């Protein structure tokens, strides 16, 4: 029967991503679970670790920094969301694109940029952590709240005004309640990112400030107390699951947003000054850390030069190899990771677009489980034969592809859904076989999203730090890992090398973005 065959082929499509997730996501988590709950083959609930002072302090700081970071990010992002979504002005699209830049930057680069920016003494502190989180996540607020805000019908405000509501009343009684679902959604996303933030805290927090995420790394990689690490991981998983549940519920409420569809007006009168000030300040604040990074990478002694960059060619005691090897390693690993992510992500996206909701949730899990958890799980799960991957170079791209997978699926599913089913039907009626439909209709229409997804996966893998730092071999460092090692050593040369590597990494990410956007897309069929 035709229907049976279709069900069968759909199951086969879903089978690849499900098997991949089972082996490389579920199995490592099981390994963490086993390590924390089972001792000598017997169940042993680790109350000692759960109730220890260390756990309490770490959990408290994790929650505290995530909450404060979220509040600050909302405060910083709302004015910009307002200016970008409610008004039309020259250069708006450029500003919109620029706001997204921090979000796609590797966390290690963001953390290093704040070391470059902040004066000595403050550079590794709570303030540095909070500022870096705001810098990183403003894009989320601008995108989520801004898109929602732009879609709200302007006539509501006009109606409120004609009904006698003052400006302040309109903001309090109209804007705020209308935006509430978008605000809640953005807040929960930012909270989740800050809660699971690894690179920023491990670099800027130093030994004094630890979150669940960084303490897992500390216990596992520095103190070799795998059990404590595993228990902390369990707590982390539970907390993340709770946050995801809440945010999922909030996000569903966004569905009913009504589209106004009117074009935004140009700011007039006093608005011009306010909008201008908001946009200029925001852009300046976002540009400052990156500028500081570039300046620091070029400053040598009292002057400027490329010494830090040329030094990348020489071996240093901080790494086992010359730093430029790290660039090569990163490119190789990221290429393999992007290939794996696409190979798994394309069938996954096809299955999700075909209505496999459960798979969709499953695929987003690696995003929530946090990178360091994945890395740690890999470490525990693939240490013994037959799956001893510890010395295999493949362990790095496998871990990175898992982190990139949700992005690939997210980029492809809407595009797959957007391919009008009637185009396929029209082609079928015109005599095209299913294979011809795939080749002649779907592939050309999906060229652009595929290029974007591949570029995204590559960029994510390039900047991946949390998982990579657990599984990478010391003599095969990636760029983010090399930056981390340089920053962990004293001396101006090491800091300079870290800055220079950050600039290189930034350049690579920017190049990937440009290539996937321009060459692949413009060159291919429209």
């Amino acid at each position, binding site marked *: 029967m*035709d*229907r049976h065959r279709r069900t069968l082929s759909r199951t086969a499509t879903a089978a690849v991503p499900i098997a991949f997730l089972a082996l490389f996501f579920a199995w490592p988590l099981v390994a963490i679970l086993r390590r924390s709950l089972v001792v000598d083959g017997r169940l042993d609930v680790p109350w000692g670790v759960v109730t220890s002072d260390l756990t309490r302090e770490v959990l408290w700081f994790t929650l505290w920094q995530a909450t404060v970071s979220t509040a600050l990010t909302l405060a910083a992002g709302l004015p910009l969301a307002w200016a970008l979504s409610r008004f039309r002005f020259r250069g708006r699209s450029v500003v919109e694109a620029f706001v997204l830049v921090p979000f796609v930057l590797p966390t290690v680069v963001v953390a290093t940029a704040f070391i470059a920016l902040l004066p000595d003494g403050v550079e590794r502190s709570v303030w540095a952590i909070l500022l870096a989180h705001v810098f990183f996540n403003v894009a989320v607020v601008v995108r989520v709240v801004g898109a929602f805000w732009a879609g709200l019908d302007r006539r509501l405000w006009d109606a409120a005004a004609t009904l006698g509501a003052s400006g302040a009343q309109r903001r309090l009684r109209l804007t705020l309640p209308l935006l509430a679902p978008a605000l809640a959604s953005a807040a929960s996303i930012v909270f989740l990112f800050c809660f699971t933030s690894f690179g920023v805290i491990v670099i800027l927090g130093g030994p004094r400030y630890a979150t669940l995420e960084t303490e897992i790394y500390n216990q596992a990689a520095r103190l070799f107390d795998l059990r404590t690490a595993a228990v902390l991981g369990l707590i982390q998983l539970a907390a993340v699951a709770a946050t995801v549940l809440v945010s999922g519920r909030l996000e569903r409420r966004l569905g009913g947003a009504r589209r106004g569809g009117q074009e935004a007006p140009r700011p007039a009168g006093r608005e011009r000054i306010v909008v201008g000030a908001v946009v200029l300040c925001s852009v300046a604040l976002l540009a400052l850390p990156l500028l500081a990074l570039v300046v620091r990478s070029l400053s040598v002694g009292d002057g400027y030069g490329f010494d830090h960059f040329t030094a990348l060619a020489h071996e240093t005691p901080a790494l086992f190899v010359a730093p430029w090897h790290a660039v090569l390693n990163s490119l190789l690993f990221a290429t393999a990771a992007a290939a794996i992510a696409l190979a798994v992500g394309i069938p996954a996206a096809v299955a999700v677009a075909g209505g496999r909701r459960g798979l969709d949730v499953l695929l987003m899990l690696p995003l929530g489980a946090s990178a360091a958890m994945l890395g740690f799980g890999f470490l525990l799960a693939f240490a013994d034969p037959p799956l001893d991957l510890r010395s295999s170079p493949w362990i790095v791209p496998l871990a990175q592809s898992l982190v990139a997978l949700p992005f690939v699926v997210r980029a492809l599913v809407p595009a797959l859904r957007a391919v*009008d089913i*009637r*185009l396929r*039907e*029209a*082609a*079928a*009626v*015109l*005599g*095209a*076989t*299913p294979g*011809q439909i795939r080749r*002649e*209709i779907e592939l*050309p*229409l999906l060229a652009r999203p595929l290029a974007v997804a591949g570029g995204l996966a590559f960029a994510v893998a390039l900047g991946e730090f949390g998982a990579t730092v657990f599984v990478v071999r010391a003599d095969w460092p990636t760029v983010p890992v090399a930056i981390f090692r340089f920053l962990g050593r004293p001396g101006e040369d090491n800091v300079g090398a870290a800055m220079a590597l950050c600039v290189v990494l930034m350049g690579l990410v920017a190049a990937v973005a440009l290539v996937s956007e321009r060459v692949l897309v413009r060159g291919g*069929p*429209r």
Partner: protein
Amino acid sequence: MRLTLERIGVAIDGRRILDDVSLDVADGERLALLGPSGSGKSTALRVIAGLQAPSAGRVLLEGRDVTRVPAHRRRTGLVFQDAALFPHRDVAGNVGFGPRVAGLPEDERRARVSEALDLVGLAGTERRDVTTLSGGEAQRVALARALAPRPEVLLLDEPLGALDGPLRRRLQTDLRELFDQLELTVVHVTHDVGEAFELGDRVAVLREGRVAQVATPDELWARPADDWVARFLGMTNVVRDGDRATVIRPEAVRVRTGRGGVVTAADRDGAVVRLRVRREDGAELEAVAVGVEVPSVGDSVAVDVDPDGVVDVPLWRGEVSD
């Protein structure tokens, strides 16, 4: 090519969309599928095209059972409501798609494309980007695309639905001339009575997934199957009488100067004027008058009813869902 639907039933997610639909379209005949939205007419078209598998019944082409033949091997042409042109191909790429996947050589393909574009009055537009076409042009390209593989049966799903006003009327006339020229078997879905009457040799009225009546436009107008069909065709003089209804066709109501009724509305629709007359007994009747010497609102008139225009029909016992 003769097309037969044999007791077709379609259920989607447990909901009955089509129920026991049988239709017979002769070679070269044009059948209009007329019905309100939700009556299942588009689904019937998808069943014919092979895009929807029926849960019961058979589809026959020239007596051959094609129920299990997939869409791409049915040799039917389908024109979608809003064109559904391939956005990544130009006009020639769209029109030439069918010949291309059929493996025709380049020069023949090009001949087919220009022939089809010629037919729809868009000769020379091969290199146009389809996203720059107007609504009417897009619909013509969609028609050319459906014609280029030389289908045996042409299916049109509300081809004029997205258009309005004079453009719609012009394309309607063009379509009729084209059908005359091609001698194709045509099934044409519409919710517009005028369009169905102009483009269909016969009209099948669909209601809640079932065929309410199949007849030529004249027969349909003369003898609607029941009160629902009469109302759906636009007749308003339908009076319920027990389990029957009396339908008086508007053109059978004659109005002349005199006494007995008052004109309450007079709306000109081209050559005819639609009148509403309230008789002294309180009943309202619709009448039509032709020419320019017609009564206007408030005039006192005498009303005669031609007995030939009075039809006694059964009541439909379903729910009216339009």
